[in-house]
């Protein structure tokens, strides 16, 4: 169970229709790879964010599969075009079944 997980997202508050905007996301997460061993030589179980998605008004913008090699606090920066006013929904899926959400509204 990962503790202290906190998603952060930066989206401009408004944009012109059809414009490409830059979205930055970051989630604090240890991203334990499952390859490491603790002091007694026992493997530390894998605990990572395995999937990240971004949707705009229900339409998929980006869908990412994350692998164990990705380091702590995964950060994504991507561009999206905004056809109309609406809301971005960001979702992170943890190995332990937890789902973390964040939403950001944008006006045109």
């Amino acid at each position, binding site marked *: 169970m990962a503790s*202290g997980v906190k998603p952060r997202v930066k989206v401009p508050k408004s944009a012109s229709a059809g414009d490409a905007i830059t979205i*930055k996301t970051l989630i604090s997460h240890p991203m334990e790879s499952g390859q490491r061993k603790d002091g007694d030589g026992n493997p530390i179980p894998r605990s990572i964010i395995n999937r990240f998605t971004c949707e705009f008004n229900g339409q998929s913008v980006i869908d990412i599969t994350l692998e164990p090699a990705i380091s702590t606090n995964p950060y994504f920066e991507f561009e999206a075009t905004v056809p109309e006013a609406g809301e971005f929904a960001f979702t992170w899926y943890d190995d332990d079944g937890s789902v973390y959400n964040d939403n950001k509204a944008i006006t045109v």
Partner: protein
Amino acid sequence: MKNKALTAFAALAISAPMVFAGGADDDTLAIDGQEMISKAAAPAHMADTAVDTVISGWHFREDDTQAMQADTFDNPGMIAVDQAMDAWNTVEGSAEKSCATCHEGPESMTGVRAVYPKWNEEAGSVRTLAMQINDCRTNQMGADAYKYDSGPMAAMEALISVQSRGMPVNVAIDGPVAEVWEQGKELYYTRTGQLELSCANCHEDNYGNYIRADHLSQGQINGFPTYRLKNAKLNTVHGRFKGCVRDTRAETYSPGSAEFIALELYVASRGNGLSVEGPSVRN
């Protein structure tokens, strides 16, 4: 063809010193649009040194690293600030208090980072920010003290530093702290270790020059706690001191020791006039 190659070579020769020089650049540091004082006239007590301008370590870093600090979202140190925000509101210890019980929001800490370390009348000694945090934890909250240079301590220092961001460092060096300040100054100029290096040898005599593949800064601590890309976590002032003394191949003082407290006071006073930047991003 040959002519073209020569021209290209000449252009390279001219631009090369610019690219490879390790000195402070002329960029302006603005964090989320808020402009910082990253160069200032040296404080009066440095009149007998060769330093006439004090320069934030930010100027000695590459553009990419500089950009990371200029945007709080890109600054990985801000994650620790978020964590400390949670800790601020967490009730701990036998008194069942959190930081917020007495201090309300962290905004109440505005200006604090700029004047520490400072004299504490009650304790009759110089106190660093870390000592004050631990004093609160043990005496007010009845909680366990943080380890001096631990992650939670660095995070709490970062949260408190953010409240003073942009304010000029203004550490008092006279009055009751004068004795400790003198001790710190002496440590600054004392050569240690097998390499027989003092702080001043690198950070006063040679800032802007290379040390191996890296540039030497002035060793200012206005940006602490500092997120270092090298170890991907926040680093405290005393942790950095320890690393520097170790690199002279000496047995180091411990974080939180009287020597490092004195040195912190002296080094902080060398940055009087520079903005508080913490948490900064460095190599």
